[in-house]
């Protein structure tokens, strides 16, 4: 991701808009930095990150925002629903993988962690706690089949994913309004990976 750091005034403005009384210690203007990054599937809203260096470990709070209205990424898909209601979400064949990567990164699934693998070999070495890897929204899988139903706007992606630590071939159905359903199709064994 390409981040653009906010200047001091914009950082303070952001803090004033997102801080809460109950968690005031997390919003220290002195020890916080803010930055933003474009997302290819939102028309105008961007991903904003506030980093507080005084907490342990260093604490980041992420939001989808247009610079004035901030939706906090709380692990649910509520912020994405707000974007859909605002007409912000535009899914195309070019950005659908980035959207799925973003969704898996920010919406916690009951089934556990999920991430699209770049290739089968990555399953043996990937670190799900590597933030840089999780935020590679543009990472394109080598093995993928993508269908886009022009009439409904829905997508069907078949590719290899890590599904709660297990490598799987999975069907990822994405509706026109960004709802995602993952159906594991085939477990991938170590023999296949090697």
């Amino acid at each position: 991701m390409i981040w653009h750091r906010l200047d001091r005034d914009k950082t303070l403005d952001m803090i004033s808009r997102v801080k809460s009384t109950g968690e005031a210690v997390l919003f220290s203007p002195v020890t916080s930095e803010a930055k933003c990054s474009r997302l290819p599937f939102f028309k105008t809203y961007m991903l904003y990150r506030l980093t507080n260096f005084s907490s342990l470990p260093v604490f980041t709070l992420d939001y989808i925002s247009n610079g004035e209205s901030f939706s906090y990424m709380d692990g649910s898909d509520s912020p994405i629903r707000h974007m859909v209601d605002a007409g912000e979400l535009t899914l195309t064949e070019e950005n659908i993988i980035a959207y799925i990567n973003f969704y898996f990164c920010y919406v916690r699934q009951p089934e556990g962690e999920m991430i699209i693998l770049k290739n089968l070999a990555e399953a043996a070495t990937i670190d799900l706690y590597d933030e840089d890897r999780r935020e590679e929204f543009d990472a394109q899988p080598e093995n993928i089949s993508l269908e886009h139903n022009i009439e409904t706007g829905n997508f069907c992606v078949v590719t290899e994913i890590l599904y709660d630590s297990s490598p799987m071939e999975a069907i990822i159905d994405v509706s026109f309004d960004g709802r995602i359903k993952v159906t594991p199709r085939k477990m991938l064994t170590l023999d296949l990976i090697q």
Partner: protein
Amino acid sequence: MNDVKREFGNLGTQNTANPYAHPQAAAIMEECRTMLLMIPEGRRLLAFAENNHVALHIITGREPAFRVGDDNTAFLICPATTAAVDLHVAACNLACAIRAAEHASIGIARPDYANPTADLPKITFEHFLDIIYETCIIAHEFEVEHKSTKLVDFVEKLGHSKMYREVSSGKSKQEVAPLLAEIMKY
């Protein structure tokens, strides 16, 4: 994933008044405390938190984690989608948050990334060594006392399986330090 006794459902609606407030904060805290009371180190940490007035808060966030503010307020972070909350991991994170708050009283310096000094790498290493060692202790006590390996799996997922084996065999924090130093390239 969610083995909580209660039926939380799938409460994903964001609280617009305070988006950080977890809709099931009280229930998660109660469940985490109940779990920690099952092991000696958990009981010790909860007693420390109570005796030293460590404020414990649960907030929403995309990744289960913990944070300690510079006023020793401990935050447990749980996804707003409660069905995705793993209680063992949440309880372990709560334990680590209390342990991080305990550091000042046991001579473990707090890394200050906002005002870095020359010994920041050393301080950072010692901070994380203690927290990871504590995580291994918690996981080991659940395994020994309750035959539960869920946190052992968690520790292995974090990449600390070697350290866990050493800690569970009785090695001290200083004896396992080289393992973490290799991972952190310290």
